[in-house]
């Protein structure tokens, strides 16, 4: 059973994705299939039974197939660090310990982009 904090985080992620979907639909140049795929990816990666860390690990992958969700991933990383006081680097360590080196590499890349953006 998801703890309340994880539930709050999950709702935040879903809400941010819906905002992007709204913008894409309002621009009228996005095929409906694309919008449906974005919804599908979100439903697959972000699930109610997940704990906080797992939600975060999956959320940062949202923009892997959908660059439109890059701003959402950025917001999620910021939210995770600020509100939940978690070190993003811990996630990278978890990936390495689990032998998921590709995931670790992607996470480091995103972390560096995020930190660079923060310093601007």
């Amino acid at each position, binding site marked *: 059973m998801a703890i309340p904090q994880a*539930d709050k985080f999950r*709702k935040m992620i*879903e*809400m941010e*994705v*819906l*905002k992007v*979907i*709204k913008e894409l*639909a*309002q621009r*009228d*140049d*996005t*095929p*409906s299939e694309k*919008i*449906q795929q974005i*919804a*599908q990816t*979100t*439903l697959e990666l972000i699930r*109610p039974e997940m704990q906080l860390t797992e939600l975060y690990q999956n959320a940062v992958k949202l923009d892997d197939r959908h660059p439109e969700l890059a701003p959402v991933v950025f917001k999620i990383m910021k939210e995770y660090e600020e509100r939940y006081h978690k070190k993003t680097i811990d996630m990278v360590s978890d990936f390495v310990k689990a032998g998921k080196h590709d995931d670790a590499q992607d996470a480091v890349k995103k972390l560096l982009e995020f930190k660079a953006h923060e310093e601007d």
Partner: protein
Amino acid sequence: MMTNEPKDIDVFIPPRKPDFDIDLEVPKQNEKVYDENVIESSIKDIAETANVAAEVSSNATRLILKYIQAGEKLTGVFEKELEQLKSEGKTDRKQAALAIDLEVGLLLKRVDIVSKKLSKSLANKQPDSALAQEAESIIQKIHDLKEERAADEPNQVVELAKALGVDESLAIVNPFGALEEKLALAIIDDLARQRIISAIEKMGGPTKEIKDFLSHAKLQDNVKKYGKRAAMAGGAVGLMMVLSGWFAMKMESAKRQ
């Protein structure tokens, strides 16, 4: 001996033109390529809806994503969610009212789209009976939901009467009559006035129903009815102004906080 046999001549026979015209429709630049139905299902207003929807249930945003993923129209999503919550015994009056308001909002958007399509079909002299039926059923649905909403909402004037100590059966049968006397008393009695103000404050401020009740016309009737207290007409208007103005200020300051 040479013969003058005709040589074979290669004759080019052009391919036979089909009997029908094949109109290969090439999308014009910037032409919409999406499925109109999906976009018509209020995807454009999803973020606004989702923001409020999250207050209906923690599942609402995920539910909206599921509908989008399936390419389904969003109408019906909040009604289903509300039924689910009710079946689990997990809903309160405020949640139910919110879900109904959201559902009515979606239905109104849908009926707007359907009626535009219907107008177009009528203008083209090709009336679409399926669209007409859909419009009719949506309007009926909106009516039913609004009635359900009204039935669930407590009668604010009755609640106010009960809060001021009026007998419950009298409050239900004749709430305005029961309150008139209290209000007349409030014109000359500070304590009675304060009780009314406190009771309305506990209810979250004056609703439209209460405001209508406290309207100038009603208070004037009240003052005439209580004869002696007609001399206090100035006080009656003053009370109305105090109650409506004071609450307006309170609501504004609550919004700012």
